[in-house]
């Protein structure tokens, strides 16, 4: 882990950004955007998580090995989701009854 210490101002700014995004999370539940509901909610959540990981967990200032580790973890999460969805979204694609 890098010994770089971020300024207090930056931490406060990130905290405020997270608060604003949390308010947005609540606010968008009152707006029906159809199919976009999920993507907007997930977009806000991913933005918040990214801020936490980059700044509160110091990954932004970490060396390359730590960054590779974080990205690798995310890639494997994507594999889990993508190949599971490949099943659910692919049902009926080849015309096999029930499959």
């Amino acid at each position: 882990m890098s010994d770089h210490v971020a300024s207090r101002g930056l931490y406060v700014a990130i905290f405020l950004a997270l608060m604003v995004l949390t308010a947005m999370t609540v606010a968008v539940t009152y707006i029906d955007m159809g199919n976009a509901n999920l993507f907007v909610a997930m977009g806000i959540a991913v933005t918040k998580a990214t801020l936490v990981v980059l700044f509160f967990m110091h990954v932004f200032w970490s060396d390359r090995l730590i960054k590779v580790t974080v990205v690798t973890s995310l890639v494997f999460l994507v594999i889990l989701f993508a190949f599971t969805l490949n099943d659910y979204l692919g049902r009926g694609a080849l015309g096999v009854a029930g499959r």
Partner: protein
Amino acid sequence: MDTATAPTQTNYINVAHTAKSWLLTRDHKRIALLYLISVSVFFMIGGLFALLIRLELLTPAGDLFEAETYNKVFTMHGVAMVFFFLIPAIPATLGNFLVPLMIGAKDLAFPRINLLSWYVYVLGGLFTLAAVIGGGVDTGWTFYTPYSTAASNTHVILTGLGVFISGFSSILTGFNFIVTIHKMRAPGMTWFRLPLFVWASYATSLIAILGTPVVAIAIVLVALERTLHIGVFDPTLGGDPVLYQHLFWFYSHPAVYVMVLPAMGVISELIAAFTRKEIFGYKFVAFSSLAIAVIGFFVWGHHMYVSSQSAFAGLVFSFLTYLVAVPSAVKVFNWTATLYRGSISYQAPMLYAFGFLGLFLIGGLTGLFLGALGLDVHVHDTYFVVAHFHYVMVGGTIMAYLGGLHYWWPKMTGRLYNEGWAKFAALMIFVGFNLTFFPQFLLGYMGMPRRYHMYPEEWQVLNVLSTAGATILGVGYFIPTIYLLWSLKKGEVAGDNPWGATGLEWQTQSPPVTENFPVTPVVTEPAYAYAHQEKRFA
């Protein structure tokens, strides 16, 4: 055999004798021995359940157990063997002992976390044992939903908790290995001078870290659905049982590689040492470990061809399953090429390595049958599958584990075992294994389903053969317990390097001192520099 006096040098075993010095140790070598004892206990428990299964299947009638009891017996066999023996066996015992020694480090990066991993493992094991004593669990080691959440009235949660807890032990060991290998290599120990066992341990650790949390969460969701009736997997609650299979196999297929990758690492060491040659295509073998670890995460759907998984997903998973055979084959071909014109000596560890090669080959090739979309429908959930995964996980992992245990026993204990008995046991295990499991390929192909305690009479001959083989196998596994324990007191003093092997672990005393090396070694040669060694001694 010459029974010499006990080693008088200070080493990691005789440095302290109190129970506290063992239970609070931070020495990776002592923790390895704690793991060795613990996994051996679970191996015996799992073996006892295997014995009960084979006794029941001796006759076509269900004359030993009720169907419900039989369900519990094979479940407890699977849970004990998979989660508490096969997964931790090589990484937590041989890996713990050897990774720091092989890279020239004094210990793992986080010694306290290493000790914590053992306590976590024991805690998980105690939960599972409590479930066994309390009446057992009957879901199969896979805990498939909706049966496990909606129907089973056995100790699903208690067993699941045991598995959940022990998973953290794997994670802790895995990240300890990764950090250690990255950060604590001795001067000159570059990545491509690492012994292949270290590469394999690294790849295994990646899988343990990336996969274990997923199965842990899947098991937690099972527990939540059983207790709070939240609808995740149960269709009557709005859930989807196939989702459980996705989450379970996302980890549990790569878990096969958690079992077999370290075994492959052991085999590389054995073949190099007993052929006196560098491993043919070192870099290919090293990278094939990483390739297996990565591609192994893309194939889990081949366990689900007969579920409602989409045909398209099945097609993709089938293709990827064939892909993972490539790096596995790279290893087998390269080991075979290493044997060519090698100065082969047929000592007990090498006999286990040969056993591994034959059994893993059969296990791997029958995996191709099961990866085929059409043929799998015929043999799915039959004894063909049971035979296949035992050839890989038992024929592969346990042969390598025993081979490795024999090879490094002199380093771990400072003593030599009886070579004659060791060769006899290796042969007995190989014969017993094949007699146990080869008939099961035939039974499965003829349609005998797994997990039933009764079967038609025409299948009895093959079942009797299998049970007879299991008896030989059981005795074969028991014999090393005797002579290895005997060697602790009466075995010949081994010396630092009884095999004349390369590798830093052989350059320090046997058993090593607590700090492993009196001075940090400096590495100037590639791994397996046997050609250089022969020249030096010529």
